[in-house]
């Protein structure tokens, strides 16, 4: 009997046993809900209710002090947001950020993972050091980049000057277009370690036997990568694309602190930093909530499209 049919038979048996077990469980049917209860209470209080509440706020000119005096303005907050040039600019900035940081993280992360995917002395040390930016708070790394990209005597300016690439120091953080360079570099720098770990887990799930078979057939490294590694890594890469895109569209703390550090005239906002400013500085809660929901809608649509068009099962038997 082939291995596969043995496995099928075994799984049929376990399914039978499982059916028995489920019957037993159903007799005491409240147990599952007890398991869910603590999480459900927190989820309703701090996610579900806040979501609905902020949906409601998005249709009002909201008065935080006396909510009962708030004026229902219908979809006006959404229309205002969509026609607001600052919001439009923030969407463009966020999309640019995503278009640079997502491929950047995937390319460098995959490269690092391929290098780390072997047993060699020092592997654990390398893995830990590459993960260092991931474990560091966004607040810390943003201030660190603010320091390194300082407009006069920052490290980046000094290095570029000593290499003769620029003559005068560049004021990286004072120009809405230039500031995207430190922001995207920071996004890639902070995310590569995480991406590499996920790819590494994906690589380790590829059976060694495939490479051995390929070696017997005389395949070279490049063929192995293109014919075995890449196709089998596809689900992992699609997963990363979706998750990193969601992450990029939610870029927030780096933009917030960098915007605070300089006078960027509302031109360097990301969607969430503009939402933050509308809410916590302009106290325009309705606008803030509407912007959040617009972003959520974009995130849903983009994720759906990515999964719909890229998810394809790869089977190697």
């Amino acid at each position, binding site marked *: 009997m082939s291995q596969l049919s043995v496995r099928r038979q075994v799984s049929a048996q376990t399914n039978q046993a499982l059916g028995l077990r489920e019957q037993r469980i159903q007799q005491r049917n409240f147990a599952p809900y007890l398991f869910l209860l603590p*999480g459900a209470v927190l989820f309703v209080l701090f996610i579900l209710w806040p*979501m609905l509440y902020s949906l409601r706020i998005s249709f009002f000119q909201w008065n935080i002090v006396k909510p009962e005096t708030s004026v229902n303005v219908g979809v006006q907050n959404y229309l205002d947001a969509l026609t607001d040039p600052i919001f439009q600019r923030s969407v463009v900035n966020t999309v640019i950020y995503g278009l640079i940081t997502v491929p950047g993280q995937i390319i460098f992360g995959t490269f690092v993972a391929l290098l780390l995917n072997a047993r060699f002395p020092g592997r654990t040390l390398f893995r830990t050091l590459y993960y260092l930016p991931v474990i560091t708070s966004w607040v810390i790394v943003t201030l*660190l980049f603010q320091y390194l990209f300082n407009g006069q005597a920052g490290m980046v300016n000094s290095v570029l000057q000593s290499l003769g690439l620029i003559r005068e120091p560049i004021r990286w953080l004072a120009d809405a277009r230039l500031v995207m360079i430190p922001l995207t570099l920071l996004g890639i720098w902070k995310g590569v370690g995480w991406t590499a770990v996920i790819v590494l887990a994906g690589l380790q799930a590829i059976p060694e036997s495939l490479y051995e078979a390929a070696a017997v057939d005389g395949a070279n490294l490049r063929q192995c990568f293109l014919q075995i590694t890449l196709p089998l890594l596809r689900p992992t890469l699609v997963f990363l694309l979706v998750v990193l895109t969601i992450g990029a*569209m939610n870029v927030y703390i780096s933009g917030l602190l960098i915007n605070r550090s300089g006078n960027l005239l509302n031109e360097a906002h990301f969607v969430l930093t503009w939402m933050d400013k509308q809410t916590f500085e302009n106290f325009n809660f309705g606008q803030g909530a509407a912007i959040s929901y617009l972003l959520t809608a974009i995130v*849903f649509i983009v994720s759906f499209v990515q999964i719909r068009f890229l998810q394809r099962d790869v089977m190697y038997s």
Partner: protein
Amino acid sequence: MMRRLPMLATRYVFLTGGLVFVLVPFIYMISVSLKPQAYTFEIPPQLFPREITLNHYQEVLAKENLLLYFGNSLLVATVSTGTTVLISALMAYAFALMKFRGKNVLFSILLIGMMIPPVMLIVPQFLVAKDLKLLNNLLGLIVVYVTMNLSMQTFLLRGVFAGVPRDLLDAALIDGGNQWTLFRRVVLPLSGPGIAVVVIFTFLYSWDEFPWAHVAMKETAKRTLPVAIALFQRPDLTEWGQVFAMSVIALIPVLLVYIAFQRYFVAGISTTGLKG
């Protein structure tokens, strides 16, 4: 075998090259935290300080309540992590291994928590926390951190628990175990690497979180480290030495947690099915 050695050398060359980019900012961070203030923006900037002082560390210890913020962060991150592991493991157990009415609908609702930008919840969360007397109260950070991690961690652990061999569960059931003993005696002990992943992710999140702590903890005595560090940022005279002294100290606990659990990290991610 012949090809092994050059391959290994190439690996080291590329890995070390990449590491330069990863590490140079951190070396600067440590270096500035040890340089006298006059050298913060010396020209040209020196990667390694010529003169070392512990002034910045003494100042953040004495004037800036470093120990207090550190204690707050440690308490919040530890309790949040423990509570998240427990609560999301319970939920994951139900979703992975129990049969009940409404399971798929409830699971889909739970997953919404992974799709929404957390910042959009801050205003209503603030109102809930106010009613529950959780503002300026570290418990207010803990409950929100646990909740914000629930969806992702339950999703991960559900994948891990689904991989526990059925025979073991059935054997334990036939031996007269109930769901609780199954959960504690069979499923949890078999899920070590998966739980290590949850510990790393949750501890990092709670230790590093800024927006909620910034809004909910206005009292100085209740600040966490990221809030305290962000407050150093001033338009003209940011005290970089102190910023980075505090940052270096803030990095130590997460580094220790990561090192302690990283042995299981990659293996654990494989068991969660996170990779796709």
